[in-house]
């Protein structure tokens, strides 16, 4: 592309984003959609038009996996590399595509046409193996489909002309309850919230005088907040913080001049094995947006964001259409539902391949167009969030539940589930079972029940809540899903007895190493050391000494890390060591310490260069494997 053409693209994109540097990530992403990468000329132009230093732009671009400051090919293929994708044979498919296209994994083809690489879980575990082509998701890959895709790429067929069937993503809802089965019409929950207002109270918390003048509650918003508190709703993003308290703290936070309150929907869903937010957004976006609007009403917010993970880019246009429709129906915009002062609108920001951006303060940094590094706390987002304004961040499912609570009341909701865990939980089931997909249960369901419902047999283990959650062995299958026992953000990954739990843990460790934001020493270096140790065991050089090292690293990551990613990065390893020790012992060829350096492995580059891989080109080895 010519420098002038690039400048034209950049100008168009930047102007659409009101020349606002806080939209930097969105600008980079859209420039890339037009140019296939972010060339230096584009950065020149951004620097001039946004008035920000180059270091800032390059710093942001360099942080996100899906932003390329070097040419990556017209077609950028990324194979999903979650453990479930591996179990479904993604490695062979990737090799097939590479061979078909004469391209080396991780490199760009010589004609600049295509690059093929790996990416973390794409949230298609129930219909894997999955891939992204230029950030558009394709599910259900097979050898035939890979051959067809190679043909399309070779013939330079534009992505828009590929068979639509490729891009069809299923919802696979196997069990629905109050959310997925909600008989809900857009606007209903808001009207119900409004109707709850006492006739003498102010109706909208955005009305000028409410905070100053009304010591005893504030009519509509107060009544709505009460229902949320009464419901006992706790956040569905993993940590389980009480939603009512979060909203109240935000509502009570002082507003500085010119500031407003902000509602953020966390649709980053990066935890490997989780895909329920994808289904909620595709099946019931109105419910989610309505929940956000209820929140805005309750806390007096005027601005809303959905932070949609880059892997779900394909949902963007549809979601924007739903938002536009809601604006037409006066469910967004000014004086919502005819309530004077109830002003609120929602913008969607798309991520670009960084799991850590699901952490709420990193998410806010990313929304502000920065590197996704978790902030120092306190202060917390409820008082100093997006652009230093009071902000609530909630999970997609939390907002969906909030909408239903606004509609049907807190009592109703509190009556579902268990004592400490009100309501239902949507679980993303994948791995070794007959019916992977989405299951919504009242809290309190046992692991065993879920396994039975999805047709899992011969089960060895379940990873609940993804790698940062817990690995449950057979003798624990009567434990229940709920904050009193096993809390979960939703992942439920099943492994039957043929699976090697060491390799499961190793896959997760690679994930954390790749996704560490790099801000703090213990996690940045610690996850790399952990990965090296797991690889060492994999290659057969492990010894009890390495076990001790892993335990030490775990301690350090837990105590010294800056955020939840570092705190949980060792969990899969520790759980599997404790519960599946034989998988590790099998690799313990050595009783004494053995160095990680393996001369034969180091010679692989030489073998590749000389095209020789016969027995004579190897030093004697008894073990080995592929990375």
């Amino acid at each position: 592309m010519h420098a002038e053409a690039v400048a034209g693209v950049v100008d168009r994109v930047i102007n659409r984003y009101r020349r606002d540097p806080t939209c930097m990530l969105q600008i980079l992403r859209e420039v890339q959609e037009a140019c296939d990468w972010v060339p230096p000329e584009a950065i020149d132009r951004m620097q001039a038009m946004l008035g920000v230093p180059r270091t800032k732009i390059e710093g942001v671009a360099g942080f996100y996996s899906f932003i390329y400051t070097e040419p990556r090919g017209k077609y950028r293929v990324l194979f999903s590399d979650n453990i479930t994708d591996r179990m479904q044979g993604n490695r062979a498919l990737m090799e097939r595509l590479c061979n078909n296209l004469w391209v080396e994994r991780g490199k760009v083809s010589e004609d600049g046409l295509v690059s093929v690489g790996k990416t973390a879980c794409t949230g298609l575990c129930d219909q894997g193996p999955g891939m992204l082509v230029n950030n558009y998701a394709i599910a259900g890959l097979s050898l035939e489909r890979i051959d067809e895709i190679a043909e399309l790429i070779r013939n330079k067929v534009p992505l828009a002309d590929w068979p639509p069937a490729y891009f069809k993503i299923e919802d696979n809802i196997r069990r629905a309850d109050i959310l997925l089965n909600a008989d809900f019409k857009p606007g209903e929950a808001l009207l119900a919230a409004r109707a709850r207002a006492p006739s003498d109270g102010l109706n909208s918390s955005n009305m000028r005088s409410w905070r100053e003048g009304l010591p005893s509650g504030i009519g509509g918003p107060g009544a709505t907040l009460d229902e949320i508190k009464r419901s006992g709703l706790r956040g569905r993003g993993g940590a389980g913080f009480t939603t009512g308290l979060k909203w109240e703290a935000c509502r009570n936070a002082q507003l500085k001049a010119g500031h407003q309150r902000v509602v953020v929907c966390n649709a980053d869903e990066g935890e490997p094995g989780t895909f329920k937010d994808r289904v909620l957004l595709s099946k019931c976006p109105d419910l989610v947006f309505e929940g956000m609007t209820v929140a805005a009403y309750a806390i007096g917010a005027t601005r809303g964001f959905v932070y949609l993970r880059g892997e779900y880019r394909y949902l963007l246009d549809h979601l924007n259409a739903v938002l536009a429709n809601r604006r037409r129906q006066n469910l967004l915009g000014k004086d919502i539902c005819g309530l004077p002062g109830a002003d609120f609108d929602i913008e969607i920001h798309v991520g670009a391949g960084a799991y850590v951006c699901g952490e709420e303060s990193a998410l806010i940094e990313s929304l502000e167009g920065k590197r996704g590094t978790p902030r120092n706390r306190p202060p917390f987002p409820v008082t100093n969030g997006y652009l230093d304004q009071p902000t609530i961040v909630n999970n997609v499912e939390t907002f969906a539940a909030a909408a239903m609570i606004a509609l049907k009341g807190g009592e109703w909701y509190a009556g579902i589930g268990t004592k400490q865990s009100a309501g239902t939980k949507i679980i993303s089931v994948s791995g070794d079972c007959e019916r992977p997909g989405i299951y919504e249960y009242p809290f309190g369901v046992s692991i065993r029940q879920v396994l039975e419902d999805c047709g899992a047999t011969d089960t060895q283990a379940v990873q609940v809540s993804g790698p940062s959650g817990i690995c449950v062995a057979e003798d624990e299958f009567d434990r229940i899903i709920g904050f009193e026992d096993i809390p979960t953000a939703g992942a439920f990954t099943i492994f039957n007895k043929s699976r090697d739990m060491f390799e499961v843990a190793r896959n997760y460790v690679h994930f954390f190493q790749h996704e560490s934001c790099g801000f703090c020493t213990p996690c940045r270096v610690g996850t790399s050391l952990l990965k090296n140790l797991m690889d060492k065991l994999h290659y057969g050089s492990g010894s009890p000494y390495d076990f001790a090292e892993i335990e030490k690293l775990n301690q350090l990551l837990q105590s010294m890390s800056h955020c939840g990613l570092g705190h949980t990065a060792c969990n899969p390893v520790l759980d599997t060591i404790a519960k599946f020790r034989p998988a590790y012992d099998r690799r313990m060829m050595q009783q004494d310490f053995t160095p990680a350096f393996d001369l034969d492995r180091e010679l692989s580059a030489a073998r590749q260069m000389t095209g020789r891989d016969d027995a004579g080109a190897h030093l004697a080895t008894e073990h080995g494997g592929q990375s």
Partner: protein
Amino acid sequence: MSHTFTLDGKVVPFVDGQTIIQAASAAGVFIPHLCYHPEFKPHGSCKLCTVKVNGRHTASCTMRAAPGMVVESETEEINAERRALTQMLFVEGNHFCPSCEKSGNCQLQATAYHLGMMSAHYDHFFPNRPVDASHPEVLLDFNRCILCSLCVRASRDVDGKNVFGLSGRGIKTHLIVNAKSGQLADTDFTLADKAAQVCPVGVILKKRQGFAVPIGERKYDKAPISETAETTEGH
């Protein structure tokens, strides 16, 4: 308002808004640190300054002091963890102390001595980080960068120049400079910049004066880091 908390049993006074490390250093108590510098906004990334507050680990450079806090710092447990962090920083970059012209003036080296670090313990990563010698007055040897961001903060907040920034993610995080070429010579950086003075290790080096003060007579050769009043050292 002035209040107190206890630090390893000692009563430490503080005023509202002070962080634990600020109060401690005002009271003459040393807490190891690398990314903290009294003149800049705390960053909280190296985690060397971690202490236990009421039993929980937290970075003392970002944690505000509060009345009645019980803080532990000089315990064997915490120092062992700090030592491990220091070792991590050593293996992550390329630190050849005997040949480094910052030796004796380097906070990482001095901190390692303070913590009794005897070996790197972990396998070295040996990253490939080319040197930038383009600038007439200053050499950038990225091999020793510990990503503390002090130069980034100094250039941005004091010099108003934004010469430095971080790019990449995870273990690939690295320092960049504000030029299309990526070379320091193509920036407006000068020796007079605050950012030229803050690097705690040997990345940002003034040319042609490396061994003006012989090794053995340098700052931390004379007194350990725990006794050298503050961290605003030059050469």
